[in-house]
């Protein structure tokens, strides 16, 4: 049994899909016309799909964002016109949970950087489940710095539960590595477009997401901490993750309301993995459009706009009761 809620729900649908396919092939070879049965089954299938996936709770979205078949960074990067991966932090090692390099997107040279989780256990072990170590963040910083020097727009793909919480990561100063990324992204003199394609978990996600334009997929999540982490921190009970997911306002729809993200790319009914190729095309089109808009700005204007955008975020009041900076 999968620990993914969505995968579990899909099992019944997969069974229906199999039966429809069987009937279709039988219909083609046998004299009896079964098209009305097929149509009825297909009708039922669409109905179930709508019932199960028509509206998702935050907790269901968390599972959707973590779906094993959801397109990963490399699924997007492999659809650029060209990609030449650049490796390593120049200090200690290459972190496979970060994939980055020079790329052509719709003919335009860019720097592409993404967090990469695995599709199976073996790849997940190699890629540390998409949780970057300090070496990964140092690679991100290096590539962002290079992009800024060369005038290449930066395209990031965010997909991580969070930064790696291990002994070696602490020994190699995970905090410093993330802090240095944030610093680099606040000063890069090129357009930055970030897309949260799966799970955006805490500072480990933000390290790739200070951007002039932030996109989220419809069922992606982006959160101050994973729901499990939040429940553990606040209530010392990781099993209350579902409750935490509901309170954290981690959906794309909530975050657009707060002004934290700029655009939502819709997913097909049932999630991005039901039409991986289509969703990649859509996202890359939107990323390209955003870069085209942003390249019209001078580096100084970009930096000023970026500063104002982050300076404004957050709701607070003065003692006079006047609400300042409420971003709705």
């Amino acid at each position: 049994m999968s620990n993914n809620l969505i995968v579990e729900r899909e099992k019944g649908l997969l069974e229906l899909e199999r039966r429809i396919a069987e009937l279709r092939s039988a219909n083609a070879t046998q004299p009896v016309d079964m098209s009305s049965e097929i149509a009825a089954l297909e009708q039922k299938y669409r109905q179930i799909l709508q019932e199960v996936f028509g509206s998702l709770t935050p907790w269901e979205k968390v599972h959707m964002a973590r779906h094993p078949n959801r397109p990963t960074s490399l699924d997007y990067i492999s659809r650029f016109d060209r990609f030449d991966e650049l490796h390593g932090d120049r200090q200690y090692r290459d972190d496979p949970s970060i994939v980055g390099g020079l790329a052509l997107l719709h003919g335009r040279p860019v720097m592409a950087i993404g967090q990469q989780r695995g599709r199976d256990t073996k790849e997940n072990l190699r890629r540390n489940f998409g949780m970057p170590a300090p070496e990964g963040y140092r690679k991100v910083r290096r590539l962002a710095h290079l992009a800024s020097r060369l005038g290449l727009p930066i395209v990031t793909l965010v997909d991580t539960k969070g930064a790696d919480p291990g002994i070696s990561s602490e020994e190699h100063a995970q905090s410093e590595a993330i802090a240095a990324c944030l610093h680099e992204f606040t000063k890069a003199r090129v357009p930055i477009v970030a897309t949260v394609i799966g799970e955006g978990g805490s500072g480990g996600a933000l390290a790739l997401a200070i951007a002039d334009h932030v996109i989220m997929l419809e069922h992606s999540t982006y959160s101050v901490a994973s729901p499990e982490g939040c429940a553990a921190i606040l209530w010392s009970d990781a099993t209350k993750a579902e409750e935490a997911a509901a309170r954290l306002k981690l959906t794309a729809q909530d975050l657009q309301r707060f002004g934290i993200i700029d655009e939502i790319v819709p997913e097909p009914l049932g999630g991005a993995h039901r039409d991986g190729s289509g969703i990649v095309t859509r996202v890359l089109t939107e990323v390209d459009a955003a870069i085209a808009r942003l390249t019209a700005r001078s580096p100084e204007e970009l930096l000023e706009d970026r500063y104002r955008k982050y300076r404004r975020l957050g709701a607070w009041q003065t003692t006079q009761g006047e609400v300042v900076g409420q971003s709705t």
Partner: protein
Amino acid sequence: MPMPEWLRIRRSKDSDNREAALWSKCPKCGEVLYRRDLLANAYVCMRCGHHFRMGAYDRISTIIDGDFTEVGAEVLGGDPLGWVDKKTYGAKLSGDREKSGLAEAVVCGFGQIGGFDVGLGVMDFHFRGGTMGTVVGERIALLLEEARRRRVPCIIFTASGGARMEEGMLALVQMAKTSAAVTRFTDDGNVLFTVLTDPTTGGVAASFAFQGDVIVAESKAVIGFAGRRVIEQTIRQRLPDQFQTAEFLLEKGAIDMVVERRALKETLVRLLEYTVGTRVQR
């Protein structure tokens, strides 16, 4: 050292709560300490040298020469997510205000240290575990912007459990806001010193705490990205005691120096002497 007027006023306001306890027991050696002696010793245990967690205003009084003018004090919290669990977020905030005598988890302002004009931010673990929400982010940004205008160095004392859960993503993006403010401040030729005190973890560690030009840590302070419990659960083994201490980070090359609290002011003045062109006339 005479008590400055601003601190006398504050003390009289919250004399009922925190000052009420006459005695404090050292959590390290068990010694029972008279609270006034402890305060005079900068909250360092007279017997074993344990550094107690310090309140923001006590800290300011041990670091600043005399007057201290706050900035951003008018910025107070909202409840952007309408958070409710066992209590509402609003109730948690007012409870902590009662207990700590603070309006939020950081106090920022301007004063002099050894005759040098500086901007000073001091976080306080007694308020929501020093977590960073919109108010902390906003006050730190205001401090750095004003220090940039005045062209004076900035010193930030950190003490934080990380980002504040009850403000969700609006808390997380304060890491971006403060980083942007640090970048503008330091790129403009100004110097930022950070002093990491117990504990400095999570989103504060991973933003301005580790963006200092010189990073000082207080002796034995716990400093790290992930919490000890999280790491132990992940690796399923107990971590050695010195893991994530200031001394451990010094050995690993993550910070510049470890300083005992009573030598902190002197250290900061020495650092200012190297980096500030003109000494302010007293």
